[in-house]
């Protein structure tokens, strides 16, 4: 635990793998910039890695700076080439003790969710998982009436998304949070931004290297939901794997991708890689067409920021209509072919 440190920087763990930064690291750097501007402090990114060519790490540091970092703490060590919990945790805890940041943010990726709790436990600091929003505000302790100035508000769904809780950490700093990929918007890089690259060395002993990597198999990303301008998503109401072909036809006619709710994935209609929502991908496309999706909170959390939402559902009371801009109460097996037809007519015209 570090003491309350008003001059402390806002930090981001810069997750990288095989020499490229994870999107969430850049998304969070942008958010950290926003938070740091409200606090009047600098943004720092912590970039551990190894085996990446020297200019490779520099390239990553430049990307972080272009997205809003003022300082990039580079820890370049061959033993940090592959992520493992204890070595990366040692890097983070050592640098936290040395520089006393007031906020540390991690992506809620498999790596971030493995690392952040270990770091928080070692630092005896608070940690809030899977935040959907972050803000800065003064907070009054309801018991002591003491006012804590400019705390990090860590906002997240809880109880399966049925409530939204705001979590704060008064004095056992740093204030730490993880944020899911795609929740914060990826800003445009500004190549003219200036920042400082600081090389740090962290001592790694045997206990940091307790896990031996035998084999690693990373699948090609099957579908890039985040990058799609148009998403056609099917839910349990689609009813079968065969029926999903209609959604592929619609997506094809619009140049979009097919996604799904958890119900459709659990039903075996489509692979989990297509899942939207709290336990899947968060998207914000120009158009989101929800077909036969009831719209449980967990699903809505992953799509409600879409610019335009069309809901097609036989149930007029389905919660999905509440986030939709256009609502079609009807049988998708009739409505979807009508849509395909209307799109084709538009193309001919």
């Amino acid at each position, binding site marked *: 635990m570090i003491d309350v440190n008003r001059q402390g920087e806002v930090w981001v763990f810069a997750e990288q793998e095989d020499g490229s930064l994870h999107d969430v690291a850049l998304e969070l750097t942008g958010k950290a910039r926003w938070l740091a501007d409200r606090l009047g402090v600098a943004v720092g990114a912590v970039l551990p890695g190894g085996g990446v060519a020297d200019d490779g790490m520099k390239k990553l540091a430049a990307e972080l700076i272009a997205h809003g970092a003022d300082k990039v703490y580079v820890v370049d060590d061959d033993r940090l080439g592959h992520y493992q919990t204890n070595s990366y945790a040692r890097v983070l805890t050592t640098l936290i003790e040395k520089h006393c940041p007031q906020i540390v943010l991690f992506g809620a990726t498999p790596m971030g969710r493995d690392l952040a*709790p270990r770091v928080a436990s070692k630092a005896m600091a608070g940690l809030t998982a899977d935040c959907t929003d972050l803000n800065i505000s003064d907070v009054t302790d309801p018991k002591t009436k003491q006012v804590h100035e400019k705390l990090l508000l860590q906002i997240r769904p809880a109880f399966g998304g049925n409530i939204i809780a705001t979590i704060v950490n008064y004095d056992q700093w740093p204030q730490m949070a993880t944020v899911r990929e795609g929740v914060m918007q990826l800003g445009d890089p500004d190549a003219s931004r200036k920042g400082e690259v600081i090389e740090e060395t962290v001592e790694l002993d045997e206990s940091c290297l307790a896990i031996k990597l035998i084999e690693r198999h990373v699948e090609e990303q099957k579908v890039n939901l985040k990058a799609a301008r148009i998403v056609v998503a099917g839910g349990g109401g689609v009813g079968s794997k065969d029926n999903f072909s209609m959604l592929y036809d619609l997506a094809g006619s619009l140049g979009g991708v097919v996604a799904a709710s958890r119900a459709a994935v659990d039903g075996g209609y489509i692979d989990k890689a297509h899942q939207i929502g709290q336990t899947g991908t968060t998207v914000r496309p120009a158009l989101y067409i929800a077909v036969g999706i009831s719209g449980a909170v967990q699903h809505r959390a992953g799509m409600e920021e879409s610019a335009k939402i069309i809901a097609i559902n036989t149930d007029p009371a389905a919660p999905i209509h509440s986030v939709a801009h256009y609502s079609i109460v009807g049988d998708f097996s009739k409505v979807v072919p009508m849509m395909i037809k209307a799109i084709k007519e538009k193309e001919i015209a």
Partner: protein
Amino acid sequence: MSYDSIVCVKQVPDTANVTAEAMKEDGTVNRAALPAIFNPEDLHALETALEVRDAHGGTVTVLTMGPPKAAEVLRECLYRGADKAVLLTDRRAAASDTLATSYILSQAIRTIGKYDFVFCGRQAIDGDTAQVGPQCAEKLDIPQITYLEKVVKLSGDVAKIRRNIGQGYEVVEAKLPVLFTVVDTANTPRPQAACRVMRCKHARVAGEIQGEVRTAMPDASDEDRQAEVERRVKATDERGLMIEQWDLDHIGADLQRCGLAGSPTKVQKVLSVVLTTDGFQEVAATEEGVRQLIKELVVDRTLG
């Protein structure tokens, strides 16, 4: 070589099915109104531990923290094959966040004593944080392997594990002791065994017996009740069915690190999710309605 495992399990409100009746006026969920279930991923953690024991020998001890009612999940573990169960219950542990919870669990694990593996579910469905497992490992100063999907091989003091990393998998090796968090694709949990249900359905923690006596003897004096509690505890113990019940003193916990005092994170505000029903435009499910919609989307440049 045989292996001794400790499995951390949790009784959770069934958050997947929260009804309006379960919401209190202040917007918080009334946990009491939700059915309490065995946290789903913890069942997979238990199954992994049982499979290790079945293949190599050793013991499986289950540990939970919660009110006396949480002994329900411990009984479920016994029905499925756990050898021993421990309930950590203490009012002073209430309102613990993940840091305080992991401290308390790690103290309980140290009190259980010798172990080769600690198994946890990846995360619990009430908080979805996935933090307690890794934080326990840090408190115990042992390595963690998260998202365990398969125990590939155990030989001597080395465990070879396949872990799911989202876009693929890793096979890693670690020397024990080590803590694992287990995902739901790891296995299919075994059903409860009828003979074990018959044997263990009367297993109780002391706190449950006290509650049962209070209900059965509402008008009796404290002395009479206490005597009845003692009688029932003795009878249950003679049948080998008392489940261990520990408090914070028993595990030597520093109270400053437990409950509210030991929790850096504070809940500042809770809002229930409110659905708005206005603001959307209804589109008729007809060819004309759909055609108009597509036209509108072209006009506002949503469709290129």
